[in-house]
């Protein structure tokens, strides 16, 4: 049977176990949690579970690179080797709110999967936080979830 008449909603395919950080968590805590969870992205939420931002490994790495090297990339090969460690120690206590990405795309758990697919493909992002009608974080949906849904439609599994 081909499931073409079925409604494909986000809440059916999303992951409900989300790795989250608080905006007050430090750089070091963020690194620790990411390493433990073996993930490259975490959602930053306040105590009411409202989304404040998103933190990817890119954000962490970019923050580690001093601005002056970012502006002048051909200098990187001359930089002293201990700057890497020095910089990491320097920023380890700074709060996540300083380097997270603040503008976050989200989708609603009752939206159709097409909505999530559009956002993922348009902004070339890996995962999308899902919120309920009160804007509270309830899960996330990633590229694999979309593929699972396509697999269901095509009866591949």
């Amino acid at each position, binding site marked *: 049977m081909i499931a073409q008449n079925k409604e494909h909603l986000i809440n059916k395919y999303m992951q409900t176990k989300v790795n989250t950080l608080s905006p007050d968590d430090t750089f070091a805590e963020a690194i620790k949690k990411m390493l433990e969870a073996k993930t490259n992205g975490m959602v930053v939420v306040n105590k009411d579970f409202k989304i404040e931002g998103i933190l990817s490994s890119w954000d962490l790495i970019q923050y580690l690179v001093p601005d002056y090297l970012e502006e002048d990339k051909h200098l990187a*090969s001359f930089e002293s080797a201990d700057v890497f460690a020095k910089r990491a120690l*320097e920023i380890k206590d700074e709060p996540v709110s300083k380097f997270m990405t603040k503008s976050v795309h989200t989708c609603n758990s009752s939206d159709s999967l097409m909505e999530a697919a559009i956002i993922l493909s348009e902004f070339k992002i890996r995962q999308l936080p899902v919120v309920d009608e009160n804007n509270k974080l309830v899960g996330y949906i990633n590229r694999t979830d979309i593929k699972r849904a396509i697999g269901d439609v095509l009866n591949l599994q």
Partner: protein
Amino acid sequence: MDKLFILAIIIFLATYVIIITEKYHRTIIAMFGASLMVLLGIVNQERAIEGVDFNTLGLLIGMMVIVSIAKDSGMFQYVAIKAAKFGQGDPKKIFILLAGIVAVFSALLDNVTTVLLMVPVTLVVTNNLKVRPKPFLIATILLSNIGGASTLIGDPPNIMIGSAVGLSFNDFIVNLFPVTFIIGVATVAILAFIYRKEFVFNQDAKDAIMKFKPNEAITNKKLLWKSLLVLGIVLLGFFTHGSTHLEGATIALFGAALLLLMTVHEPEHNLREVEWTTIFFFVGLFILVTGLEEVGALHMMAGKIIEMTQGNVVSTTMVVLWFSAIFSAIVDNIPFVATMIPLIKDIGSITGMDLTPLWWALALGADIGGNATIVGASANVVVSGIAGREGHKIGFVEYLKIAVPMTTIAMVICTGYIYVRYLM
């Protein structure tokens, strides 16, 4: 008093005050004030446009385009890295060499561009040397403004003065380079003495520096040669424009067009890198000053200054030198110089005095006076901004303690130089 006269002065002063307080962006408020001058009929549009010195604008735009292309070749970083290696890892030698490079670059490039190129490489070098970057950064600020004072193209006030008065590139070098050279040497020597305890030699640091391969800084060899060729042509153009009678804008814009022709297919990005906010700031100021001129306010001011100095060349020159320095230490020197140029011309036409020393006094005071405070010149603000982000915040008072004595020494040297060379 005439209504337009009062209106013009109110608009001008209000604009000035807002520029100083930084309540709005200086470009926006200058454009707003300028358009009010025209809108209210203080100066008609035709006169307003005549008041804009397109030679100054063309020169600035041309140089901005050339530098925006040439800097991607890595040539400026190459020179700095090479200097660090030449200094054999000795912090004091490298300090002196880098300060010298800042002075030379800023004599040929705009000061802000110079520090934007030099601060990152300075931080990399001091990280390798394991010394505190702050002495190097303070030297960068001071020497960028001193070096900028030595040529026609080194600092916007000089461009404005040269363009308005018809002074050539060589006129600036012959008259200003000797004194800026002395000031530069004195400044570096005193700084090197003050910070002598920080320049600790370290064998590991030396090894790291000696491993530098300056060629790695060159990211694009073809671009490097093309840029050097065009910079050479532009410099040659400036060295000879006293006799070829080509205007500065002609030379700079030709260089820009030539470099674009040789390196770029789509100029959109490079033309966008021109600091249009600065260019529009100039346009606004030129029109504001034209408004003041039109109603006779500058003529009146000139009369007051002559009354004060009794038309004496020596005292007028000294007033211009020190007043320019103090004023430029506190506020942007560009609006100040834009106002002073027609005012000094008026002093000349009223008294018939030889204006030569006054122009050099104005240039030196406005360019070097900016050194005294951390907000005195755009280059200072840029350096302290980068330093702050890297955890080496240069405090306002901390900077004053070094910079005010250094600037005072520089102005005393200028006073002696101008007196001996032009007034004795």
